[in-house]
């Protein structure tokens, strides 16, 4: 069964540093998403991306965040200057025209 692959599985970074979280969506999917989940809380939408541009973003997705699809297979989330409160699980997801909304296993980001 096709999977959404995320790397790394765990990232530890110092406050103020930039991090890039990487995702390989399912190959024939067209819509890409990032969500985050703070420990013990619900999964929250960050941003959706289609046709090389952001289609929707939440209020969490401020100027410190950016997304990019640098090539035909990767989809990245960059946090420019991490804060302690950015510590969370970050999930990438992708979907196709007929649905098939699939989540990756996540990257655990720990900001120290």
């Amino acid at each position: 069964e096709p999977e959404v692959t995320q790397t790394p599985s765990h990232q530890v970074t110092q406050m103020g540093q930039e991090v890039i979280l990487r995702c390989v969506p399912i190959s024939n999917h067209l819509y890409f998403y990032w969500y985050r989940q703070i420990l013990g809380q619900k999964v929250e939408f960050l941003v959706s991306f289609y046709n090389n541009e952001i289609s929707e973003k939440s209020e969490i997705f401020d100027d410190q965040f950016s997304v990019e699809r640098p090539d035909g297979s990767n989809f990245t989330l960059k946090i420019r200057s991490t804060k302690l409160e950015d510590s969370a699980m970050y999930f990438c997801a992708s979907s196709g025209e007929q649905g098939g909304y699939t989540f990756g296993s996540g990257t655990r980001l720990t900001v120290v």
Partner: protein
Amino acid sequence: GESVGLHLPTLSVQEGDNSIINCAYSNSASDYFIWYKQESGKGPQFIIDIRSNMDKRQGQRVTVLLNKTVKHLSLQIAATQPGDSAVYFCAEKGYSSASKIIFGSGTRLSIRP
């Protein structure tokens, strides 16, 4: 506003019994609902979905019930097994392929042997 909520944060069930996880939503215009299972260290995994033009949908060992009158959604798991231990989220999604998913707060289901 956007709101999909759950009644209980935890549920403990005897192995072999049926589990019922409940969820309330506030937006009467909501028309598509999904139940997700999240095991420790993993991403949300699709279980079953239902559109607002239905009131019941069955899958393998799972049934989703939708009561639009009281804006209530439930997930029933038959003959609960140890592998069903997880956090279960109800979620709402817009109709289009590109729509975001709005998750509820989650219910942790634990299974007693």
